[in-house]
């Protein structure tokens, strides 16, 4: 449990550690003891090119959205243009995920305190924006975007009548 928690916080270090100490992981750690955090700290401090690794990890994070693009395109293709529950759920996820990611850019890059990862952030944002655009394109092709006059038809007020009529066949 604790391991996973730390993983979330510093993902890159988890990978790194788990692989290096696969045999020690068999023994359960005492509660409250966070092996990884400790190890990570010592490792990174020890490593001379930690800076490079950090940058690399940052790039990993930054490029993740772009890497998703082909997969998203495939999902979009698979979802089809019909409007039913599952395609809607899929397409909804397509747009919600990058939007969420965009808003949490700051927290995603928080792990690098002090480092000004402007380039990475920019690429990350671009990637998410590309995803959003893709999703919007999908919405458009599914006809979910209210861009046509027919989409606003229901809100158009009907004409009121000026003249009123009465009458019929002669009653004589």
């Amino acid at each position, binding site marked *: 449990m604790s391991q996973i928690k730390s993983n979330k916080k510093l993902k890159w270090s988890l990978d790194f550690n788990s692989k290096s100490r696969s045999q020690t992981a068999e023994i359960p750690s005492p509660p409250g003891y966070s092996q990884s955090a400790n190890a990570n700290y010592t490792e990174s401090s020890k490593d001379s090119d930690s800076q490079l690794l950090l940058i690399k990890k940052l790039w990993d994070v930054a490029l993740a959205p772009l890497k998703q693009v082909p997969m998203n395109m495939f999902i979009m293709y698979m979802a089809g243009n019909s409007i039913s529950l599952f395609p809607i759920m899929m397409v909804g996820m397509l747009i919600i995920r990058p939007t969420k990611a965009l808003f949490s850019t700051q927290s995603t890059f928080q792990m690098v305190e002090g480092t000004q990862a402007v380039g990475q952030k920019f690429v990350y944002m671009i990637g998410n924006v590309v995803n959003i655009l893709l999703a919007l394109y999908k919405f458009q092709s599914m*006809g979910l975007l209210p861009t046509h006059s027919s989409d606003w038809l229901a809100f158009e007020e*009907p004409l*009121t009548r*000026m*003249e009123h009529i*009465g009458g019929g066949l*002669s009653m004589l």
Partner: protein
Amino acid sequence: MCIYEDQIGKFDWRQTYVGRIKFAQFDTVSTAKKIIVATEENVLAALNLKTGQVMWRHVFESASSGDIQLLHFSDGDKVTTVTGSNPYLVRGWDPTTGVLLWEWPISIIDTERAHLSEWWVQNGMLVHLLPAFGSHLEVTMYNLMTGSNRGATSKLPTVWTNDGCILTPPYYTCISGNMGNYMLLSLDVTSNAVQIISKPLSNYFSEGEVIEGNLRPLDGKTSQPGFIIDDKAILLIKNNEFEPLNVRLADQSASATFIDAISGPMLVQAWSDENKGLSITAYNIATNTEITDMQMSGPKINIPEAELLGVLCINTAREQPAYRILLNGADDAVHLLQQGGRVVWSREESLANIVAAEFVDLPVSETDAALESEFDQKEAIKVYSSVWAAFVRRLHTQYQQLHTLIQNLQGEGAVLDTPSPLVRDYFNLHKIIVLITDVGKIYGMDNLSGEILWQRYDGNLNTESVVMFTRRSARHPPHDAYVTIIGKHEETGNGYVISLNPIRGTLVGERVLRLDVRLLQVALLHTVDAEKLHALILLDEDETVQVLPVSAAPLVRDLYMYVADRETGRMQGYALKYDGRQVIAQRTWSLNLGGAGARIVTIAGKSRTERVHSAGKPLADRSVLYKYSNPNLLLVVLERPDPTHKDVVTAVAVDAACGAVVAASTHRRARALPLAVHSDNCLAYLYRSDKHRRLEIATMELYEGNERWLPAGTQFSSFGCARAPSVERQAYIVPASLTALAFTSTEKAITDTHLLMGLSTGMLMELPWAYVDPRRPMTLSGEPREEGLIPYAPELPLPAEASLNYNRTVQRVRAIYAAPSGLESTSLVLATGLDLFYTRVAPSKTFDLLKDDFDYHLISIVLAALIVATYSTKYFASRKMLKQAWK
């Protein structure tokens, strides 16, 4: 569109009628006692003697070929009818099952006199009498079952006959001679020896009495030949002799008949008086005594112009004769009375002839009314000076609601039996149908049960071109609902206006108003006066205008009226305006639609309550095809003979405010049917194609195009723009014959509109407009498919599933009335004809209502299971977490 088998009778009801009864005979021989009746509506039926319900019924042709000339019930087991009007048909029926036994035709060679024919059955022979006034009588006898002619026609020379003669089988009786010197002559036409009975008429009147010499036969099936002279004296013919009775006719209008009671022949008389009500007397001829136990009179039962249809005398077990008297009123209602004046049953046969119907909303209940008045803005300002007062009021109403709720809960068991009060239900499905019948009787009917809540007969009302307006609905609590019926006076033809409260049937407002002019047309003012009442605009014969009430005259503006003459096809439009003193009608347009010799078959306008929800149709490319929905549009269908194309049908869409023709089309070699409907931008009318000998429906849709002509929310004026809409047209084959056509209507017009059709077979069909959409494409590919259009097929599908009334057929459907309910999905439908059928339809399925087979148990079980599962998994998850943490 279709219903489930378990929904039979859940939302619908049917009432079966036979029409005004012409002949009635009691059948007491069969095990199930019944009355065999033949009616003015050309219906032969058997009514249950105990309940009055129809046991079996045969509907003949509605034209003169179905006229019933004779109904004879021979004591054996046969019912004989003679129907038609040269050629005639003689048919025999089994009285118990109603199955046809035999039929054979008779043709009278003398076509000009054929309508004078008299028929009766004597000794198993059908006797046909054809008088030639002033010359002779032709008597022919036929074998009843086979029609073989026993002996040829015998001609009896009778120079003394005239058109005032009557037949009292087998005697043919006349009054002949000059004023003051009348002779009463009678002849048994079936006897071999010609024996004329002849007596001076003055023999039967006291000295000094003025004798006019009018003969009237006795009513019903009399047991003895007899007649009434001058509405006074009653004579019998016995043993070839006249036999005057000691009693005279009790009242001028009295209806009299002879019956064979156990104690001897008996004369029964019945008459009604406006004040005293119905009176019945019986007189034993043999003993010359009044039979007291049959006498009755009193204002309890009011049958206008009562007429005896028949009297039945039954022997009960206690050796006391029981009588059943069948009476017919001028209001077409038929009543079966017991001695003592108790009504066994009544049938409102005028309902077989409905000319107008209107659905009227019920008032809200008192608590709801209080609530509504609270939220009424104007009222609120008047009553509450402060927020505090409003708050107190709010609390008070809340308390009231709670109180009634508790009361309802407490008294639930007790109140079940009492009928539900006439208040609006939550979905406004409960309404009152106001029906006007041909004879001038007005009914208020509960739409859910079909029960008659009130009735009102007015013999002065001529319903030939009657119109009915709901001038105030029940939505304005302090004021009652208000319905006005405008017809003609029976005698003078002047305007005749009846205003009543549709909920109770009482007269209100103008009550009964006799105008002293003939009316050209009537309109309802669109604005309301201070009492929330729509004023009535009456356009007179001489084009002057009356406003009812007069105080509403200044409200008249932007009102236009049109008058169409059915026979000449000419239409005229008037602009109505208040000039400071009175309302004047200015003739603004006049058209001659259809050309010379054309006659208007029907005019279809929009319903007054119609609303348009959507301004256009979204197309496949997501642009909008804007509708041309001109609220002043009329569809006029005309027909005229054409020298080269036989008959030509012309359909014209006219703007009734400015008189402009919007669209027009013609059909050659076709005959129009008086069936046309018009709603929103959709127009449809029916015609019979003579060339292909089939029924076709032509549909039109009017569109503005891809751009709006006027910005949304602005005012549409007929005088504003002169642009012509684009017209989409198509025609379809109807593989049935229709007698009624209507559109469904819903409150906000969001739901699809369907066509409701009444078929000659008695079925009511519901057809989605999509099937007659003029934009149905021939080949389905690309855009039309996406738009949901159906590929073109010339023949309309009429599957049995689309039937509204399943096997409860409605004979001779005349009209279909549809009204919106409070539920947007649901439209209330009443079909009138010989029968009445009511149901409700949901053109786009009941999207705003749970299905009536909704499985409440399943959903609650699933919900409960889900909740249990949620909590249990939560518990187990936490346990597992704890375990993991300890690992």
